[in-house]
């Protein structure tokens, strides 16, 4: 359990763009109840904006025709839903068993030194955010890092250095 109760109010209205709107309408037909669209709609929002604001949650509730509390419940329970903006490059390092056994800490320490942020933080210029996450299901090629959702396997400090170099 982690505390994810804080929502950010932007003061700006939210709506799906045309592409997400069409995808919402396609998906809603696949379920017998509209509440099943809560997770898919949260994903569509995150794809569009990178994170999910209080206004976006209200929009989703309205769009589905359900209570705002139900959307809030799901958004705060599932840890992959970002409740605040992340860095331009969002780096997730797996911290669980097999990655831990194969020295994921060296990568975390390197990133802390190189970018100057600890897990859970965003760099001041907004370029990088770092997170330690639970098992990513790539234990046979541990340690594993996800950069903006893309998997990078059999990582070490040298490979991490090379990966960062491609971003500069």
């Amino acid at each position, binding site marked *: 359990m982690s505390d994810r109760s804080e929502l950010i109010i932007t003061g700006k209205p939210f709506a799906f763009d045309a592409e997400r709107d069409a995808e919402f309408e396609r998906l809603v037909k696949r379920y017998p109840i509209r*509440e099943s669209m809560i997770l898919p709609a949260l994903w569509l929002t995150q794809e569009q904006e990178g994170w999910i604001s209080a206004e976006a949650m209200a929009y989703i509730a309205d769009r589905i025709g359900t209570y705002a509390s139900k959307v809030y419940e*799901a958004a705060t329970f599932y840890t992959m839903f970002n409740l605040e903006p992340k860095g331009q490059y969002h780096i997730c390092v797996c911290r669980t068993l097999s990655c831990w056994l194969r020295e994921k800490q060296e990568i975390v320490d390197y990133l802390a030194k190189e970018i100057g942020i600890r897990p859970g933080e965003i760099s001041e210029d907004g370029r990088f955010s770092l997170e330690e996450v639970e098992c990513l*299901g790539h234990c*046979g090629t541990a340690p594993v890092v996800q950069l903006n959702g893309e998997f990078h396997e059999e990582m070490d400090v040298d490979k991490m250095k090379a990966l960062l170099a491609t971003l500069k």
Partner: protein
Amino acid sequence: MEVKILSEKFDIENAHLLEVAKKHGAYSTLDKLFAMEPAAVTEEVKKSGLRGRGGAGFPAGVKWGFLPKDTGKPTYLAVNSDESEPATFKDRYILVRDPHMLLEGIIICCWAIGCNDVYIYIRGEYTTQVKVLQQAIDEAYAAGYLGDKVAGQDFRVDVTVHRGAGAYVCGEETALLESIEGKKGQPRSKPPFPAVEGLYSSPTIINNVQTIASLPFILTNGHEAYTAYGTEKSPGTHLFGISGHVEKPGMYELPLGLPLMEVIDKVAGGVWKGRKLKGVIPGGSSTPVLTVEEAKTVTLDYESMAAHKTMFGSGGIVVLDETVDCVKLVENLINFYHHESCGQCTPCREGLGWMKKITKKLLAGQGTLADVDLLRELCDNIEMKTVCVLSAACTMPVRSYLDKFRHEFEAYAIDNVSADAKLQGN
């Protein structure tokens, strides 16, 4: 030792594309399938002895048999692709390298159980995997293998991918259903079991990806071809994931029943860096650890694992070398399960947090022998007192480390250092 049943097309380039998969036999069982009575399909699966490959090992055909008849409600199939148990990484190979084998298996299962609506629940972290899977589904729809008339038959199968968003507990089948219904993933009390009252209060079968993907082989070749592999009680093959301290970690398809040490040495290249073995986690992080002596006598099947007081689980084998500090490993495990507790049951939500605090205290050199006993006592008091088995997934392994490597915990409690440091006189 390796065999190629499920992984037959894994090494073929672009086998995730329908055109390539079809050249190598994808969807070729459908003619035979539609000529069979649904009950005969279930019977064939029962005879194959195929067991649930998600971790519980429940016979698949028997599970299907629990569906009530003539309820007037639709029957749903939920394919469990949550794959979140640490050390488990087999299903994603199916999703990415042979997704049409999964879709063909889904059609077979639907025919057998009389189901038209399927949800594949895939963990949110599988970003690239979900794209490949969706592409395969789109191709299958376009080619008429999914949709209103599957392969020209008067039989509808619709498949929808539902993405999770980072909750381990959603691999538990009723939490998975809650998640599809748009709720937080908190497991339901059972009974009623999902086969009777599952998704949208309707009869529902939940099967693991690998279980479903095993169906095309069984139906094409008959149950005898499947039971020719493995042992009498644990027939077939399994996609084993070997990780941790070995020279060649990876996913290997093996028949069940092989000696664990032979697999570690011959398939996975042995313990890495020429180091000595300390222990083996046999089937995902929630399974009790085996000592070196136990590892020498166990075989990779459900019965031998049970005889060694551990579990076959998901087939995720983790090799631990002599440098592993069991107290630090236990801290890593408790951190995971505490983080993933859904918060519904007090013994899990608070108990795992308590265990975490005690372990941290020991590692900080501030623990006592009473703390070691308390940690052990908590395991007994938390287990089986919660709605689902997430808490037990933590206490079962932790208890095994406390019982088999107790001296390492005591070293922190008595000398405030690790057992290794104590040995070296530091």
